[in-house]
């Protein structure tokens, strides 16, 4: 079943065509990679899918519903969550509160109930706390619940950002360079985690990554962007042997080495 479908999506900044005629079809349960050289338009694609930018042209459908023109928060409420290339945590908040914030739009008490501490307030807060804690446990952050997010080591900040995105209960998770700045061992653990959350939460994942061991190891299908256009799509093996991709991004083996 098609979860997300982008057809003929283009985005121009003035005279610069950052993305042109972008086509994407993700089925439920897919684990897809988006790769390409710097400046190819990968993050722009993410920003288009999440409503940060509005496409100059084209259609984006989630579950058959058009999502072009919706605000980023509405798109999140429709079921697309994301992480950021440069980590954007709520750094002065605790780890637990970071996750709690993401439950916000599932919370069912009014401001009046919050201020008077009556009605559904206590039961709902207990529910959020419980859900947030169990999510932290899944991501191995439960013992850090009271730390400020800014005090976490880099790898854990990345993990917290994924946990926070998961708290919005998405159907589709977009990961923007989740392994950036991680050492090989952390990347291995991340790969395991991505596979695991996909199975556990029945999730669809689209990720941008420069770390080829991660992309080739974890993604089932790969999309290659260059100068805003898709130059190749296919399985990791196909991509690795695609001459266009080798020329644009992966690089050729130097003869004789």
């Amino acid at each position, binding site marked *: 079943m098609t979860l997300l479908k982008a057809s003929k999506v283009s985005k121009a900044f003035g005279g610069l065509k950052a993305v042109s005629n972008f086509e994407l079809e993700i089925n439920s349960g897919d684990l897809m990679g988006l790769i390409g050289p710097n400046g190819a338009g990968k993050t722009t694609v993410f920003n288009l899918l*999440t409503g*940060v930018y509005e496409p100059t042209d084209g259609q984006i459908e989630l579950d058959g519903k058009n999502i072009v023109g919706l*605000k*980023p*928060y509405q798109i*999140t*409420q429709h079921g697309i*969550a*994301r992480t*950021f290339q440069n980590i*954007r*945590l*709520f*750094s*002065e*908040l605790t780890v637990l*509160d970071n996750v*709690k*914030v*993401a*439950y*916000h*739009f599932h*919370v069912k*008490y009014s*401001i009046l109930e*919050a*201020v*008077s*501490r009556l009605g559904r*307030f*206590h039961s*709902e*807060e*207990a529910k*959020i706390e419980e859900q947030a804690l169990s999510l932290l446990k899944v991501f191995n952050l439960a013992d850090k619940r009271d730390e400020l997010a800014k005090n976490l080591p880099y790898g854990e900040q990345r993990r917290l950002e994924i946990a*926070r*995105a998961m*708290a*919005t209960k998405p159907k589709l998770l977009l990961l923007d360079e989740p392994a950036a700045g991680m050492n090989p061992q952390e990347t291995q653990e991340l790969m395991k985690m991505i596979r695991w959350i996909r199975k556990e939460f029945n999730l669809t994942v689209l990720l941008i990554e420069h770390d080829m061991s991660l992309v080739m190891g974890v993604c089932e299908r790969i999309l290659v962007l260059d100068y805003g256009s898709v130059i190749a799509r296919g399985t990791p093996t196909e991509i690795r042997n695609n001459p266009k991709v080798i020329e644009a991004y992966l690089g050729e083996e130097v003869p004789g080495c």
Partner: protein
Amino acid sequence: MKVRTKRDIIFVGISVLIYLVGEVLILTGAIPPYLERSIVTVCINIILAASLNLINGITGQFSIGHAGFMAVGAYVSAILTVKFGISFVVAIIAGAAASALLGVLIGLPTLRLSGDYLAIATLGLGEIIRIVILNISYVGGASGLVGIPKDTTFTWAFALMVFSLLFIRNFVESSHGRACIAIRENEIAAEAMGINTTKYKVLAFALGAGFAGVAGALFVHYNYMAHPGSFTFLRSFDILTMVVFGGLGSMTGAVTGAVVLTLLTFFLADIPELRMVIYSVLLIILMLYRPQGLFGNKELSLKMLTRLIGGGRRDAAEGK
């Protein structure tokens, strides 16, 4: 969860105790009228500082037009009591509602701005409100609106202060408050987490404005008259100073800032030549040694106090 309710009860209990002591001292004459005046002023300033903190400290939208909202609450309530003879309670509610409504109307367009731009816009709006009032002869124009009944008592000021603090605290410590804090921390991430940032920015702005309106109503009903000169941008800066002094984002900080700076102004009233000098030197020292304000964005709690007293030496040993 029950801890929260327990804390509310303790807070109200302590407040009632302080109120009873204060009221008895005032009734027996142990607190002279001039001191009572400054205590009522402290209560009003606490409402102002706490409400501005909700906008500036909690939601991170740097507004410096608070005196304008105070003026709206002041004049609306005064018109109701003076010209229509309506009761004080209704006047306060109407004043607050008018301020909050104006907060929504002003907030919707201006909260698209951020940082310095928002500060300039709100500064200008505060002045516009004052100048509009200055030119309405119905409310006395430049000579002010006189003949306002002195309805504000220590009881009124104190009760409304406790109500405001409870209201704002409970708001901040809920999912709605967390949404506001998330906007302060990182607006883009907050939006990506499904938070309607515009809605919460305007909401915080309107709530803050509403409580400024309450403070304005209390203020003019204590001073017999409402004068545009009471609501210049200097008052906005006074309120802002209290919030920054206590620490942006800290409720207890805002309260402490309001108490300390109001009383300081009061006690320095005897030496007018040096008043502003001492005041400024104090602020400069604070900014040099504690630029984040007295409490930073943390709340003063018993735990923090015991750590300060008991753990000072250990912290020093650890090189903190």
